[in-house]
């Protein structure tokens, strides 16, 4: 029987979600995760200047400093979809961005589910700072959404704008779903009630401070296990 939780290459938890054919990152990809990629795959593309630009849009904080007023600084944002896919490739061949329909269907499903204990996540052999981050973000969730759902707990809402794969007729190859905290990204409409993701222009060249991502690990791996 497949496990209900596992960790990705950077040591962060992913959970099995009913109806989704694979494992989904518990949180939007964090700066700690992306730094694991940077350190294992140093390159002229992702150099100090690159990361300085990323952090200028959304500064880094340590897990111990996470609060309700700054928690989004844990997540990596300002990332282009192509860079997100580079990260996915590093994680493994079975990792990918979600398709736009997968994301919104998952959000609607998780919105109907109650939050869960993070004990089984923190029981994984996580590095201490990862465990600390998960616990502090969970505390933020419980404080800011006391009647929240599993979708809120996983920061599908009040997290970041998450890149998704689109590419339908007359569509950009990438869009984004999500409703970040208004203190991080003010938006007049509730994007999660919309019928389609947002399609920012020039996604490959512009850095958008509230746009990040999470990955799915597809079931083609699980069937071999």
């Amino acid at each position, binding site marked *: 029987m497949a496990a209900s939780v596992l960790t990705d290459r950077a040591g962060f938890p992913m959970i099995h979600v009913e109806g989704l054919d694979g494992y989904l990152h518990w949180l939007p990809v964090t700066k700690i995760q992306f730094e694991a990629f940077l350190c294992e795959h140093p390159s002229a593309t992702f150099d100090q200047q690159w990361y300085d630009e990323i952090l200028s849009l959304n500064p880094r904080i340590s897990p111990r400093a996470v609060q309700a007023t700054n928690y989004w600084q844990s997540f990596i944002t300002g990332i282009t979809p192509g860079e997100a896919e580079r990260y996915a490739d590093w994680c493994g061949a079975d990792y990918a961005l979600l398709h736009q329909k997968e994301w919104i269907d998952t959000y609607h499903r998780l919105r109907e589910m109650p939050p869960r204990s993070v004990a089984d996540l923190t029981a994984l052999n996580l590095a201490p700072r990862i465990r600390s981050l998960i616990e502090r973000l969970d505390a933020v969730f419980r404080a800011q959404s006391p009647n929240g759902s599993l979708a809120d707990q996983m920061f599908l809402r009040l997290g970041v704008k998450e890149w998704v794969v689109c590419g339908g007729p007359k569509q950009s190859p990438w869009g984004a779903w999500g409703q970040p905290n208004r203190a991080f990204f003010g938006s007049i409409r509730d994007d999660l009630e919309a019928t389609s993701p947002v399609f920012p222009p020039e996604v490959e060249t512009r850095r958008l401070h509230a746009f990040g991502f999470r990955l799915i690990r597809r079931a083609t791996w699980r069937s071999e*296990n």
Partner: protein
Amino acid sequence: MPEPKCPFCLGTLGATAEEPCPTCRKAVTPEYYEISRRAAPVVGALVGFPQHGKTTFQTALTLTMDGLGRALEGAYLEYLDASTQEAVRRMWVQSARGHQPDATHELAPPLLLGFHQLPQLTDRAVVLYDTPGELFTRREDIAAALPPLRDVQTVWFLVSLTDLRQDREGNSLQALLQTYMAAMSRFSTAAQRRTVLVVYTKCDIVADLPADVRHYLADDPFQTVTLHDTPLTPDPLFDIRAYVAEMEKISNSLREYTKRIPTGLTLINMARDRGLDLQFCAVSALGESPNYQHNERVHESVRFRVQDPLLWTLALAEFGATSQPRAERRHCLILDPSREGGPVYEEQLGTKLWECANRLGNVGAFHLGYSRPIARTGRPVSLGPARENVARLIGQILEQEPSHSRALVLTNGPILDLEDYIGSTWRERLMVVSTNPSYQPRWHRFMLLREDDTPENLWDQLANDDL
């Protein structure tokens, strides 16, 4: 007090013993719950190839520890659930009939053993898994068949040198470690900070053991605890630290011996490179060869040093890293990656620190922002800036270092993730030396590089054991 851990899935148990484990829903006994609240349980796994003596060893160990009170006054072993009690009862029956235990072919529930009143040791539970030997000939099965291995902090590799030398299946010391490392990789789990105890079994038939190891085996104070007709006087002066210190000497002797075994040197080098704490024991579970054709021992056995892996594991849990020979202490040099590193590269300070560090024993060198080392112990190198001008990150380096490692960082600018470690044990083990007066981080062990600082005094300050 620690949070009690479930012995089956190693998740955190509920607030009371009556609640089943929130993660796997299995019930635990009040006895296990209570002892686990006093001290975190030790989780051990016996791994090794088929026919290398794992199950026989486990039987001998359990029987020996059951007779503890004969050698250590007041000490006793408690079986913490019915499954363990039944498993031990079967061991007793087989032993009393002069039979060897049946080999393990599937993963059985772990033995849950409670150790009480051991001298200088906190009462503690031991969760012990005996793994089927066949798993370790099929690398890909292990992660799926043995989930608890993911969380085992001390793995016992049981190796019969005699069987290994006659092996025709390609099994080797190196293969055993690689299989274990592959399982850790499958779990996406780092193997660093773990201890691997290589237990050489059937040492009664190993002809070329070093003399000091042979004498050590023969001097075992516990060798007759299971012979109830043999009088035995408890030793009131037994000292666990002294016992472990002796084990460490024998471990060092066995380490040198292992270098002469096929793939033994590879095992040692691979373990060091991966940040594993590798130690060695020698045991004889039966005292002499059984009659393998009829799966019988000839008569009740005198056993030699079967308790050593367990006592070592308990001592590690109690005292942390045991007294390590200075040569085995781990030091880590981490350098600013950029060409604008100031004196790091202009005055070759990095290279001089590396040369000095090699006298300290086990050393690695890294650039900030790179998780792969740029130099290893004993290799002469001239350290220069990194190929790419990367972000100054330290976390991926620290996460792979063993828990006893100390690190010296030489930086010319802000380390972006240093604050992540303020509340960690790195606070005492990591010294940050800045070559840039504009960068003075909020870090407990920080200094600005001064003109009169030498490589020797920088390492001396880090190695100061008074901290």
